[in-house]
């Protein structure tokens, strides 16, 4: 089991620590609902140090071939993502954020559960060098509807992308204007020392600490997928409706993707919205039904404090992709009505 190096400062902020993807991480501080509303109305920060941080060096053509989006034609000091590494069946090896530093240096942020798999997969499929920076730096995301008010207050300049900058006299490795919340914000990689100082400043300025439960409810409102729940090695970007590829270049899995574009998909990822007042939460694997016919399954669900209702997502047979129609979800031997709808929910 790994543990975030920011644990001490987070425990002082009353973090409720739990396990995610083999990491001890803050699950919540007060309640995930308060944290969620802070992201949607002001600002909050998340410790996301569990995510894999890799530096790749070598020929850009080799790296470009691994990635489903056009990486090579990107400018330096730009983020390319979200994109994905696909297997030869076009299933997800991982969905990732990538950064082009120069023509021979690249960064990747992987899902925590896939860090080692991605390192091995890159080595197997290329002659690129991979350096694992996951344990050298920590990573936080500062996110929210009014995030710039706070970021300017802590004098962390509103940067689109900056490498090796100084903050409070210490090294910040990366600042990137990105996140996973649907709100504006930045993600920052730095040593635990400098990030702890940034956290202290954020808290002093009223930015709420938020945990991974909130991160999960926030991403579901946007319809963002979580690896291991909504996508895996057997799901393609077409089935997930996750537009992480460009067909104007070559990459692993492209042939299968084109084949599937021609034949069409058997199942498709959709949003599910329960009625107001319904407080049963569908769980992963719960069946989706029309009458007594099983047409799909749930992959994620949560209670959205912003919408004040239960939302979720899952896969249904594409013949039943009837957006706007209400189907049933079998939750603990009970049928609960849910409307099929597109993303985002908000």
């Amino acid at each position, binding site marked *: 089991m790994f543990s975030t190096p920011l644990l001490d400062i987070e425990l002082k902020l009353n973090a409720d620590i739990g396990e995610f993807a083999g990491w001890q991480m803050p699950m*919540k501080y007060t309640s995930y*609902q308060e944290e969620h509303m802070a992201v949607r109305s002001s600002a909050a920060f998340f410790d996301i140090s569990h995510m894999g941080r890799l530096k790749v060096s070598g020929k850009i053509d080799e790296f470009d071939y691994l990635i489903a989006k056009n990486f090579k034609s990107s400018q330096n000091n730009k983020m390319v993502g979200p994109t994905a590494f696909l297997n030869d069946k076009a299933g997800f090896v991982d969905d990732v954020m990538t950064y082009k530093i120069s023509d021979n240096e690249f960064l990747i942020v992987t899902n925590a559960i896939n860090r080692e798999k991605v390192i091995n997969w890159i080595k197997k499929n290329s002659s690129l060098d991979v350096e694992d920076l996951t344990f050298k730096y920590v990573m936080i995301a500062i996110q929210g509807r009014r995030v710039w008010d706070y970021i300017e207050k802590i004098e962390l300049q509103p940067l689109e992308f900056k490498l090796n900058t100084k903050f409070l006299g210490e090294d910040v490795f990366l600042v990137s204007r990105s996140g996973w919340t649907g709100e504006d914000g930045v993600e920052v990689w730095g040593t635990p020392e400098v990030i702890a100082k940034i956290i202290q400043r954020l808290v002093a300025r009223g930015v709420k600490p938020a945990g991974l439960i909130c991160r999960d409810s926030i991403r579901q409102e946007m319809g963002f997928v979580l690896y291991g729940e909504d996508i895996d090695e057997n799901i393609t970007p077409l089935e997930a409706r996750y537009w992480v590829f460009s067909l104007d270049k070559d990459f692993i899995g492209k042939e299968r993707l084109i084949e599937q574009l021609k034949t069409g998909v058997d199942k498709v990822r959709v949003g599910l919205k329960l009625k107001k007042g319904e*407080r*049963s939460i569908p769980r992963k694997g719960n069946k989706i039904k029309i009458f007594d016919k099983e047409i799909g399954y749930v992959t994620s669900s949560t*209670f959205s404090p912003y919408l004040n209702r239960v939302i979720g997502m899952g896969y249904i047979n594409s013949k039943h992709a009837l957006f706007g129609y209400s189907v049933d979800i079998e939750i603990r031997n009970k049928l609960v009505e849910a409307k099929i709808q597109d993303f985002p929910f908000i």
Partner: protein
Amino acid sequence: MAEIIVGGKYRILRDRYYTETDEWVLIENNIGTVGITDYAQKKLRDIVGVELPEIGREVKAGDAVAVVESIKAAADIYSPLSGKIIDINRKLVDSPELINKDPYGDGWIFKIEISNKNEIEKLLSAEKYSELIKQKEGLV
């Protein structure tokens, strides 16, 4: 001392009885008020829904009578005693988070008219329940 604190964070009140499945029952005359313990609400994390029993229902000790839905899991709530459900906490329908905020007070779930007082001696005292939590948490 009116309460025991286990593992630095789980509160257990001395004025009531407990079950191995983490319910508490506060007994006044022949009425028992039932809820879930501080330990249970912390383990479930954020509670977002509660299914309450019907008033008038006759239940046996150990029957599943309510469901607490948290962001993590759905948990059955078992009646600690046999009897008739005579009241339910309707505030939980719109504010299930009361269980997180005040598990031993405003977060109560139902009241039962106790039909067999002999069952009370099978329940756990605060001390015994605190030993159980220590075992569950690997503190002994």
